[in-house]
């Protein structure tokens, strides 16, 4: 109001100091616990601090979900914060020159307080909780709280068995309301069926009433991202304790997407699949259909070689089976049709096609495999075979014509196929028609992982190993070749397809000269242009991730983990010095 009256010569107030010029243009430079961090603008403090080894604890933060900042566990001291206040590290992007401290008295007091509140109404459940051993509450309690309870009086009771859907059950008492599941369903699964209901102590996560039931092909992921034991897989619940399981990096065989998984196993049983991070394929997720596809690795397996069909069928030793199959195949060489399954790995198919071309002398391979199914907007593909691409590549490189399954059935109906060698039992129509057709064959040799209608009419059934029982590669729909690791030795008398084929070839006078899946790949893949440059050894994921606590010797044991509980499993194939 009196501005005009001010003398003109009054000193102009200095302009407020602008933000300091960035030390590293294009990046923000700031300090975490006394160490300088250079990061891309917009990165949050948790990720930035991790680069210098500062571990900021969090529950609600997930790098692939939006930020909620509701667990308050990641609060740190920042020089840019209002005096006396802490900032949530997950939500705050550090600015130029800011000083962050993650381990001060105040931060520790905050972490202790948060832990105490989270555990206040938490049930005394560790001994019956599936999450025990891989639970963030347990880890953070020992690291940040380690105090006795100060609770006087009863804990708030909520629903302990709230069945959310076919795959997930919720224990509302264990929930820490981080809302990771709510955000996942809305943002990733595109099915915003979960919500937080109630207020205060009675706040719970539940399915929104208009849905009634959690229905999504991706609901299994909320079990993985739940930092505590609130969301549980109905399939895995109460089946194994996390610390007795070992994990092998693997690839899902449920469809041609090839989601990266971790196969958790004990002894010679797989107990669950968990998604393994892969930015190009599945991010951190996998679908429920794939998640349950581990079951075929455990049940309805072909345990032993079977010779003869119907009433004459008898179980046989592998060496005997090889001799028998070779004896039967020998007079028919040149007229045996070859049926390959795109569920088999590249190594199996490399050896199989070499066998088809050089021993069986065919120029055509028929492709079986699982029938097409439905697909969805995200990961699941209609093609349910994990390795169709690889099969096509190898067949092309080997000069073999690829014929669809229909062509085979037509040829069989026309009586053109007298004998059939099938690598893999999967066929698009594993029904009575197929059984009737194969029954008419003079010779049907089948190398199969699982029993089905298709295995019954075979003259020779050779038990084959699944992908978790051997090292190898799959090529998924987009042409990405991926390595998977062996978890345990094959069950029963099973051997990988390539091994059966190589033994048969040797018996028939053609030595492939391979003793391991690695040798198969090294020897046969150079002729396949798409696979020739694949670094089989280097691309192998580290076989060391374990869920939760490992009671095993630090991988020095050389035995299939889990023997402690299961007794020593069948050790065939393992060498102990």
């Amino acid at each position: 109001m009196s501005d005009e009256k001010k003398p003109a010569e009054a000193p102009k107030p200095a302009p407020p100091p602008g933000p300091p010029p960035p030390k590293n243009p294009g990046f923000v430079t700031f300090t975490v616990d006394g160490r300088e961090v250079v990061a891309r603008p917009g990165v949050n403090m948790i990720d930035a601090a991790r680069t210098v080894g500062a571990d900021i604890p969090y529950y609600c933060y997930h790098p692939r979900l939006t930020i909620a900042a509701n667990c308050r566990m990641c609060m740190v001291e920042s020089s840019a914060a209002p005096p006396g206040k802490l900032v949530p590290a997950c939500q705050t992007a550090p600015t130029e020159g800011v000083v962050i401290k993650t381990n001060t008295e105040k931060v520790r007091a905050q972490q202790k307080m948060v832990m105490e509140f989270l555990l206040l109404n938490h049930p005394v459940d560790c001994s019956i909780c599936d999450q025990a051993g891989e639970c963030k509450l347990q880890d953070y309690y020992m690291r940040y709280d380690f105090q006795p309870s100060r609770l006087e009086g009863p804990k708030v009771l909520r629903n302990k068995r709230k069945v959310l859907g076919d795959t997930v059950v919720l224990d509302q008492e264990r929930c820490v309301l981080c809302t990771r599941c709510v955000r996942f369903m809305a943002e990733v699964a595109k099915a915003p069926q979960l919500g937080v209901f109630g207020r205060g102590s009675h706040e719970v996560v539940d399915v929104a009433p208009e849905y009634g039931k959690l229905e999504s092909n991706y609901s299994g992921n909320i079990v993985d991202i739940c930092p505590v034991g609130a969301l549980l897989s109905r399939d895995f619940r109460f089946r194994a304790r996390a610390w007795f399981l070992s994990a092998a990096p693997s690839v899902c065989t449920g469809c041609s997407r090839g989601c990266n998984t971790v196969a958790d196993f004990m002894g010679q049983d797989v107990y669950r699949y968990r998604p393994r991070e892969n930015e190009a394929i599945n991010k951190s997720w996998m679908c429920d259909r794939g998640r349950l596809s581990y079951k075929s690795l455990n049940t309805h397996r072909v345990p032993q070689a079977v010779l003869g069909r119907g009433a004459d069928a008898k179980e046989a030793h592998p060496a005997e089976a090889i001799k028998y199959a070779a004896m039967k195949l020998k007079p028919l060489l040149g007229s045996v049709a070859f049926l390959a399954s795109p569920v088999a790995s590249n190594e199996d198919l490399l050896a199989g096609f070499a066998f088809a071309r050089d021993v069986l002398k065919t120029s055509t391979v028929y492709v079986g495999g699982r029938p097409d199914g439905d697909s969805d907007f995200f990961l699941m593909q209609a093609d349910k075979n994990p390795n169709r691409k690889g099969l096509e590549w190898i067949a092309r490189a080997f000069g073999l014509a690829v014929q669809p399954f229909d062509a085979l059935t037509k040829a069989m109906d026309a009586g053109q196929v007298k004998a059939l060698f099938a690598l893999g039992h999967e066929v698009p129509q594993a029904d009575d028609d197929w059984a009737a057709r194969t029954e008419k064959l003079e010779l049907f040799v089948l190398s199969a992982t699982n029993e089905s209608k298709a295995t019954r009419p075979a003259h020779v059934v050779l038990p084959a190993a699944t992908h978790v029982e051997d090292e190898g590669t799959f090529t998924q729909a987009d042409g990405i070749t991926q390595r998977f690791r062996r978890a345990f030795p094959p069950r029963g008398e099973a051997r990988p397809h390539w091994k059966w084929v190589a033994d048969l070839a040797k018996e028939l006078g053609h030595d492939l000269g391979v003793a391991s899946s690695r040798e198969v790949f090294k020897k046969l893949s150079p002729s396949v242009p798409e696979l020739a440059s694949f670094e089989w050894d280097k691309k192998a994921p580290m076989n060391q991730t374990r869920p939760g606590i490992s009671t095993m010797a630090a991988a020095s044991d050389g035995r299939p983990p889990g023997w402690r509980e299961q007794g020593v499993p069948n050790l065939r194939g393992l060498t102990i010095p």
Partner: protein
Amino acid sequence: MSTFALDQIQAQLPQALSERYQDRTGAEWGVVKREHLVATMKLLKEKLGFRLFISMDAVDRLHLPPAEQDPRFEVLYFVKNIERNEHMRLKVRVNEGEDIDTIKGVYQGADWAERFVWDFYGVRFTGGSNRRILMYEEFKGHPLRKDYPLRGRQGLIPERAIKDIYRGPGTNGVQD
């Protein structure tokens, strides 16, 4: 903690020590180069009064963080000066296939300790016994290496031939 001995070694055998450090409890450790080990031990025993041989062992560093994995083995030497009440902690770092000179000529008690290290870690000692001590001669491998399986049981070995039926087992003057 006294640093007398390490200071003396540094002064009298300046090339022998490749590293010295304090552990978390403040105790002094010296890392001796393998070729200077015998000289260092002689110095310790004869000039510095470390006459009591305490013990020897080794560590297989295979499963330590990658920065600490090379060389693979750490052979530990502990000797004591009773008068000064000073405990000497020395280490020699070797890779597989690198032999260490024996110190059994300096400390007689080191013979068995070296046999122990050979038996369980497979570190050889030039001029040493290099005989197994707790395991049997037919045993294959070195069980305390980290890559030896925890339950790496080995098969039974045939009974050794009895050479003299009258006098029972033994060589009876005949060399094995």
